[in-house]
């Protein structure tokens, strides 16, 4: 247990210790801080080993007592991982290789010379100076509220969180505000649910506060099932205490003393950091009985999901916490009236909670000053797919897709042409280039046939077939439909059958109409959000890329060359150099030297041909072909 005075002194002490990370001189012996990303992306590219080697090198060079190594959460630029930042300079080393550590230590950390050829090249100016990361295209348009501590603090250290004003919002709420004042602040901020639907958070809290019951619950939805989205995971990995603190505030607001975090078991690092954070929070007395001596009790339990997408739907999530098959329930009654174990419950998403403490500390007006008229604040997006800077970005609402994709994301790589951006995962839609200048907010995205969703943003280029993408999402929903209601269970299967018929080249124009009609039936008749939005990928691609559907049906061609039954692989005899690499890669022996063994002028070997009868169109030949002689038609 810590008293408020003890917390305040920890806060002051930590602020001074972390001054280096804000570019200021150190107040203790650690003159340099080296931050290494310990998020899932960088861990997968071996950042723990990089850290171990770095620590060995520091010892070998005798500077281990002057350089502090901190493992943080996600910096956002996952494409460049493993990532390492050296403060106070803010030097950004990207894709750090274990063989490069020695040079960084001996040159930069010992002598103070930045190793220019290893830093992220965009930070090196033409005059040879190295700029901090905050000035790069990727970061300068971002505004970090929910992610403010990600990549800045050690998520497994509660002291560092306290040093960045942690648990100050909880103190303010418990000591100076009534429950109704908290709800009014959240309402006035205009914060809307970041999990997808965009329901005003304050209103949700008000409903639960109005429900009369001696037991209420606060639930955090961390079942981030949208494939290609990792915002919630990054917040939990980078700043878990922010979520715990916000849940306690929510508990105070609605009169609950118990919280549950339902987190995906597929996120082992996030689960671990939550466990560590919960333990520390209980030790410090910021969770538990009689918090800060105010008589307010609140504690949180973890529940692991088991990989069912539908459990992201609020009522299904509650059923799953109760230990059953995660099937949704009809609403009303809404969870705010009858939720977990039949008691009034609020469920908010991780990112929603991550905004709460800042709203309490900085005020509703500050939050409401960001964003558009109906969507306030910022939104985190997970950029993925065919984009240069894969990673996590947080931007004010109202930023256009073009700014995100072209400026922050660095555009589509390999000189390919942008085709569509997909938001909202399996519930969202594909947005074509003509709508790139739409300012992003909840209502605008729905108006153009997609939705905000939790924040996955996948970029597709000319090589992606939109019918195939629709099929991909439908396969996902067919797999993940819980089976409770017929429109979703059967309807999605019928949709997928029609899509398969089209991509196999057996479709007719009537099938396209049938597809469209069926979509509307499923949307209007399904029980929960999963079914009601499942047809969106089909509807949005039909709306913006109908010509591709027609090409599959009428011309029996897949314009992007993805649908295997509608394309053949061929070798351009003028480009082929006869090296036979493709012949070795071919799993079915479909590639042979041309029957006439003819040698093209200027070539030393006879060119090869593909037997289209034998070819299984796996594409193994294409990826190995140096002269790029193999093409799809």
């Amino acid at each position, binding site marked *: 247990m810590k008293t408020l005075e003890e917390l305040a002194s920890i806060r002051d002490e930590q602020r001074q210790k972390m001054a280096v990370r804000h570019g200021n001189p150190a107040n203790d012996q650690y003159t340099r801080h080296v931050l290494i990303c310990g998020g899932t992306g960088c861990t*997968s590219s071996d950042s723990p080993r990089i850290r171990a080697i770095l620590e060995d090198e520091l010892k070998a060079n005798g500077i281990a007592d002057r350089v502090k190594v901190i493992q943080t959460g996600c910096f956002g630029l996952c494409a460049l991982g493993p990532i390492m930042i050296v403060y106070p300079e803010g030097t950004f080393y990207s894709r750090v290789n274990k063989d490069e550590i020695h040079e960084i230590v001996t040159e930069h950390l010992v002598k103070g010379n930045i190793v220019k050829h290893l830093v992220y090249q965009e930070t090196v100016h033409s005059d040879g100076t190295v700029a901090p990361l905050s000035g790069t295209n990727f970061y300068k348009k971002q505004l970090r509220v929910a992610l403010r501590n990600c990549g800045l603090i050690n998520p497994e250290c509660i002291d560092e969180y306290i040093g960045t004003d942690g648990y100050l919002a909880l103190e303010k709420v418990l000591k100076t505000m009534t429950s109704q004042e908290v709800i009014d602040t959240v309402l006035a901020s205009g914060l809307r649910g970041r999990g997808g639907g965009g329901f005003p958070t304050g209103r949700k809290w008000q409903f639960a506060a109005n429900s009369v019951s001696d037991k209420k619950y606060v639930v955090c939805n961390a079942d981030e099932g949208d494939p290609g989205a*990792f915002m919630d995971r990054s917040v939990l990995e980078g700043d878990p205490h922010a979520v715990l603190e916000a849940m306690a505030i929510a508990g105070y607001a609605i009169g609950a003393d118990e919280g549950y975090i339902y987190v995906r078991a*597929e996120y082992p690092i996030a689960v671990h950091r939550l466990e560590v954070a919960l333990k520390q929070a209980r030790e410090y007395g910021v969770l538990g009985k009689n918090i800060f001596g105010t008589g307010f009790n609140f504690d949180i339990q973890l529940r692991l999901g088991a990989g069912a997408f539908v459990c992201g739907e609020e009522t299904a999530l509650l059923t799953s916490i109760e230990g059953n098959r995660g099937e949704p329930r009809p609403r009303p009654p809404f969870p705010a009236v009858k939720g977990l174990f039949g008691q009034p419950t609020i469920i908010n998403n991780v990112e929603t909670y991550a905004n709460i403490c800042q709203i309490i500390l900085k005020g509703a007006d500050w939050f409401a000053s960001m964003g558009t008229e109906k969507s306030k604040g910022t939104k985190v997006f997970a950029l993925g797919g065919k984009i240069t800077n894969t990673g996590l970005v947080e931007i004010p609402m109202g930023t256009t897709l073009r700014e995100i994709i072209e400026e922050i994301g660095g555009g589509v790589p390999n000189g390919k042409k942008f085709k569509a951006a997909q938001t909202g995962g399996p519930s969202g839609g594909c947005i074509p280039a003509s709508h790139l200048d739409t300012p992003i907010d909840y209502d605008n995205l729905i108006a153009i046939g997609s939705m905000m969703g939790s924040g996955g943003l996948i970029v597709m280029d000319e090589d992606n077939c939109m019918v195939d993408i629709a099929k991909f999402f439908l396969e996902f929903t067919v797999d993940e439909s819980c089976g409770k209601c017929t429109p979703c269970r059967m309807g999605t299967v019928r949709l997928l059958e029609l899509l398969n018929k089209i991509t196999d080249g057996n479709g007719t124009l009537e099938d396209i109409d049938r597809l469209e009609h069926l979509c509307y039936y499923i949307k209007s008749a399904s029980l929960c959000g999963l079914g009601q939005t499942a047809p969106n990928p089909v509807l949005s691609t039909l709306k913006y890329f109908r010509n591709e559907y027609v090409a599959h049906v009428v011309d029996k061609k897949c314009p992007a060359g993805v649908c295997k039954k509608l394309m053949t692989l061929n070798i351009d005899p003028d480009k082929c150099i006869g090296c036979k690499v493709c012949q070795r890669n071919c799993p079915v022996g479909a590639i042979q030297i041309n029957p006439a063994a003819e040698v093209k002028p200027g070539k030393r070997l006879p060119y090869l041909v593909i037997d289209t009868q034998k070819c299984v169109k796996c594409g193994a030949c294409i990826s190995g072909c140096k002269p790029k002689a193999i093409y799809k038609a």
Partner: protein
Amino acid sequence: MKKNLTTVSFKGTAEQEKKLDELIALHKGEEGATMRVLQGAQEIYGYLPIEVQKRIAIGLDVPVAEVFGISTFYSQFALNPKGEVAVAICLGTACYVKGSGDIFNKVKEILGIEEGTTSPDGRYSLDATRCIGACGLAPVMTINDEVYGRLTVSEVKDVLAKYQG
């Protein structure tokens, strides 16, 4: 979610059984116990053989049908043992648009087993996973705890060759 039942016979030890019984006793009577016990049992056995599910049902005093209903509902619950070489390919959107579907087909062809199954000798198992969050490395394949990122179809054969017994 459709699941393939296992073809590998059950080889539980007395020690595992003791741990399972302790786990059941710990959670018995708790609200939402079945899921927590199944999660714990999967840690003990690595998967959920029907023999284990029956024991859980008796121990918690719930119908086997209910236990089976839960174990088949959630994709995390494995009805097949993982192979000594557990291969998983991410089919999340970010990986899919970068060609993980082709990689998956290639692996399937090389190993000769279907998604969600284990070769009868228990050597290889193959899974298609949802997003594992390493989107910066897309397309991604994991073998046991190793992560192989930015893969191409032509590299698959060499990667798998490292694991030949």
